[in-house]
């Protein structure tokens, strides 16, 4: 059996086109495998990815609707308001956490020289992004059937840009996590400490404009707050928040990505060392 071009092009002399093609092929194979391994034998594994945010949403919707009796800060549906915030938060946190174990979890695969650390990270990120976009879509459909209201995003381009910014931020933090885990065993405990207040301080459950200063200013340092506002500005026709700074959000994403890639470069030997 023979691979295409194998004899004519020894591994060390791949042209960059062939190298790109190999990388795409490896990432595609990793995604297929990761889907099987991560979500297990049954479809229930994948279903759980939908159930978890849906459960969060139900609990908080009941809390806000029936116990706190709060009106929605935006639009006509409190559930839609929460969904847009919660799914953005999930998109960020799930990628950043899942990538942390990408190197350790795939150590045996990294013994196959075509598989690079970066490929493993990209494969996991793509899988997680597509999963949570799909979950968000399913929940929106479910909401429109249940609520009857309009759930289609008003400005899909703004929405796509906001999602891209959030994914960039998450991917950057994910790479940082993966590298730091190789050096400090307890890194993810630390990251968890950082992440858990974000659940309440990123404007998932409220709008930053409802918060009095100086606290509003503090919350606006959080890039996730801006990403969530940005997502909502893509959903709601009349939402043009004056405190939304898209440039600030993008800068954070770019910086996180640059930091992650730089750490990956510096630590590449350490990451491949067997434990």
């Amino acid at each position: 059996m023979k691979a295409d071009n194998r004899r004519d092009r020894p591994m060390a002399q791949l042209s960059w086109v062939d190298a790109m093609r190999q990388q795409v092929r490896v990432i595609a194979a990793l995604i297929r495998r990761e889907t099987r391994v991560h979500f297990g034998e049954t479809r229930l594994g994948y279903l759980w990815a939908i159930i978890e945010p849906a459960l969060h949403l139900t609990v908080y919707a009941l809390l806000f609707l029936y116990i706190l009796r709060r009106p929605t800060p935006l639009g006509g549906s409190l559930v839609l308001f929460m969904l847009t915030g919660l799914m953005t938060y999930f998109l960020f946190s799930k990628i950043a956490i899942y990538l942390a174990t990408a190197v350790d979890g795939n150590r045996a695969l990294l013994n196959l020289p075509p598989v690079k650390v970066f490929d493993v990270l990209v494969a996991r990120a793509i899988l997680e992004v597509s999963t949570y976009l799909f979950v968000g879509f399913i929940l929106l459909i479910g909401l429109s059937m249940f609520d009857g209201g309009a759930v289609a995003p008003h400005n899909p381009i703004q929405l796509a840009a906001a999602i891209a910014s959030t994914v960039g931020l998450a991917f950057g933090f994910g790479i940082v996590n993966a590298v730091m885990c190789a050096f400090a065993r307890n890194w993810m405990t630390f990251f968890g400490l950082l992440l858990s207040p974000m659940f309440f301080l990123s404007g998932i459950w409220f709008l930053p404009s409802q918060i009095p200063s100086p606290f509003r200013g503090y919350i606006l340092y959080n890039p996730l707050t801006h990403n969530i506002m940005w997502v909502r500005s893509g959903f709601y026709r009349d939402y043009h928040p004056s405190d939304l700074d898209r440039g600030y959000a993008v800068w954070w994403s770019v910086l996180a990505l640059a930091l992650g890639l730089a750490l990956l470069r510096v630590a590449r030997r350490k990451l491949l060392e067997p434990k």
Partner: protein
Amino acid sequence: MIVFEHVHKSYPTRAGRKVVLDDLNLVLDTTKNIGVLGLNGAGKSTLLRLIGGAELPERGRIQRTASISFPLGYTGCFAGNMSGRENAAFVARIYGYDVNQVVRFVEAFAELGEYFDEPVKTYSSGMGARLGFGVSIALEFDVYLIDEGFSAGDGRFAARCQTAFKDRLKNSRLIIVSHTTETLLTYCDIGAILHEGKLHYFSDIKEAVARYNDIINKPLDFQ
């Protein structure tokens, strides 16, 4: 050719870093079969990982002009909840081979029967090894890396491995690392000894084996 340029490599142990290669400069001719001898813990497996590219040297660089396999019979990359068929297909995809061809070859070669479609975690160690060898032999490399063991399973399967491998050796070459000399004398042309951070090169495997026997037979120093 595999070219080592000022390659330095150590790995961490509780007693500090153990040096495997200290400033190695060497050109290995991959038109020959190469046998590397070394005592347990000398760093033979690390050397193989460096040659294959699964690990990177701390200093210096390694250049290759030949395609190099993963260690023959490597089973670590198999996912336990995937079947033998799916795992074989995965490795084929990673290396850019025709998936159907590879899977058909492995199915016939490994003789796992119905188990080929069962999760790998239900396999006995012998069955896992057969799958590993099947996948390794299905893919064609210029150089195969072999860590100690050469064949797997019962006598009948071991014979199949040998036959299939003889066929591969028409176009491919071997790099075998071992702490015993028999296999190396059978298969290898040139030799090297990895000892205390240095890789000593010999253009004749017999010479390498003779020197290695000197090292083994040296009386132990109890001071």
